[in-house]
């Protein structure tokens, strides 16, 4: 490039900048209105620093539409995924500590490792099924979008179960001896949290695809949810104990047959017997 053209282009730049400066007069100062209620997380992308990770769940819950919109437009999916994985790991680990605390500290630590593992491994197992079957029936979702939506479901599950942690702790402190009640309570807590997490996934799917799901896709999603629940409970059964039987020593894994449903039914019938005093 010759010197002349360089200076010319510089000149052109200068005039453009000047033009833009002239063209944008300072806007009139708006009349100070009473401050509207402050939102905690205006946009997650504006936040910086370590705590950004933990405002994710709050942002997803408060402003789900803009979250879905950003997922739809592929905006910063990597960063979202990272912070969701980190925050859900923390939430679930903390709830795991609460679960295992009724037995011993060893059990609490073990559960803190196992509970995040349970959710993330279940997600990994079920992710390809959902993705490929959706693809088969004409979905436009990319793999990363599907993963983001599913991680959002897991993050919400973690945050909600952590919200129940104080209640679970309280029941452990006041009726600590009755192991079965604790198990039922915590299974119910995890069930409720997962239910709302997954309903979030369903909303996300609908929004990101920009259309109501047709009957076939709807069926696939429902079937998939059933499979997910099945795999999840089976995984939970394989990774047990999460609570630890109070009278028995600490073990990493227990392997004495049985199924999740069977043990839940036993616990329920025990509770019914206790409540109504029959049998």
């Amino acid at each position, binding site marked *: 490039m010759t010197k002349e053209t360089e200076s010319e282009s510089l000149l052109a730049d200068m005039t453009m900048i000047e033009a833009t400066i002239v063209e944008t007069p300072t806007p009139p100062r708006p009349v100070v209105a*009473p*401050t*509207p*209620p*402050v*939102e*905690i997380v205006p946009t997650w992308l504006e936040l910086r620093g370590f705590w950004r990770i933990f405002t994710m769940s*709050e942002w997803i*819950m*408060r402003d789900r539409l803009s979250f879905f919109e950003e997922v739809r437009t592929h905006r910063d999916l990597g960063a979202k995924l990272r912070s969701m994985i980190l925050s859900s790991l923390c939430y679930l680990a903390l709830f795991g500590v609460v679960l295992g605390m009724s037995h011993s500290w060893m059990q609490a630590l073990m559960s803190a490792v196992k509970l995040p593992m349970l959710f993330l491994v279940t997600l990994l197992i079920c992710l390809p099924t959902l993705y490929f079957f959706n693809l088969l029936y004409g979905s436009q979702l990319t793999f990363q979008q599907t993963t983001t939506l599913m991680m959002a479901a897991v993050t*919400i599950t973690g*945050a*909600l179960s*952590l*919200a*129940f*942690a*104080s*209640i679970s702790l*309280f*029941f452990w*402190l*006041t*009726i600590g001896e009755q192991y079965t009640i604790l198990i039922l309570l915590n299974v119910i807590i995890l069930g409720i949290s997962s239910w*709302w997490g997954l309903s979030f996934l369903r909303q996300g799917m609908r929004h990101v695809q920009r259309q109501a799901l047709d009957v076939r896709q709807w069926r696939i999603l429902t079937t998939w949810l059933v499979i997910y629940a099945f795999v999840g409970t089976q995984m939970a059964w394989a990774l047990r104990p999460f609570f630890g039987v109070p009278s028995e020593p600490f073990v990493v894994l227990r392997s004495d047959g049985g199924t999740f449903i069977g043990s839940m039914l036993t616990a329920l019938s025990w509770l019914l017997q206790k409540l109504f005093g029959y049998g």
Partner: protein
Amino acid sequence: MSVLKHVLSASGIVERILRARTAYFAEIGQNLDLPDKILHLLILIALGFGVFGGVAGLSGRTLGPSLLGIVKLPALFLISGLICLPTLYYFSVLFGSRLHFLQMITLILTSQAVTAVLALGVTPISLLFLLSGTDANFLVLLNISALGLCATLGLIFLVQGALYANESKPPERMTFGGWFNLFVRGGIRTLVLLSWLLLYGLIGAQLSYAMRPFFGVPLEGSDFFSSVGSAVLRLFGAR
């Protein structure tokens, strides 16, 4: 004296909550002076439940439970509120509430402060029964039902406040129909609030059993409900 000033403005806040609740809820919705409000509500809770707890603790005609009751009854309410707070907050947010943490705390404390003030109002009646020599079992039931009634009335404030403060442009005057509209419009948020009330009641009952004795009267039963049930049965001479 700044302490005295705070106590005086605490009694001012009662007037405001009871007389002009919509204005008060609107202030919560706009985040006005929340830390001050919380401090005043805490003073009210300590005062109201302290006095009621002290009088209720005299049911067994011993001084020990009464002195402890001054501390234990406020603690009972505050702790059960604290235990249930995260659930209420997260589930409200999940179902589209705009309220945030400090506002939620203020609303829960408001309902407890209303309960405390009403309990303070009931205390003379309880005292009258105590001084006129009613038997301990009746006194226990009287105090429990009075506190239950006050708590129910207080919780109405929580439900109304949570729905009202969440509105972006709430009407200034509310009629019964207006509240009903708000209640219906809340949809699933109202349902969440109501089921949370159940949970809160359950936790409160369980915690009160764990922190017993409150009355200095031995009750039979293995939890709150069976103790109250057996007290009722004894009242009617069935035991």
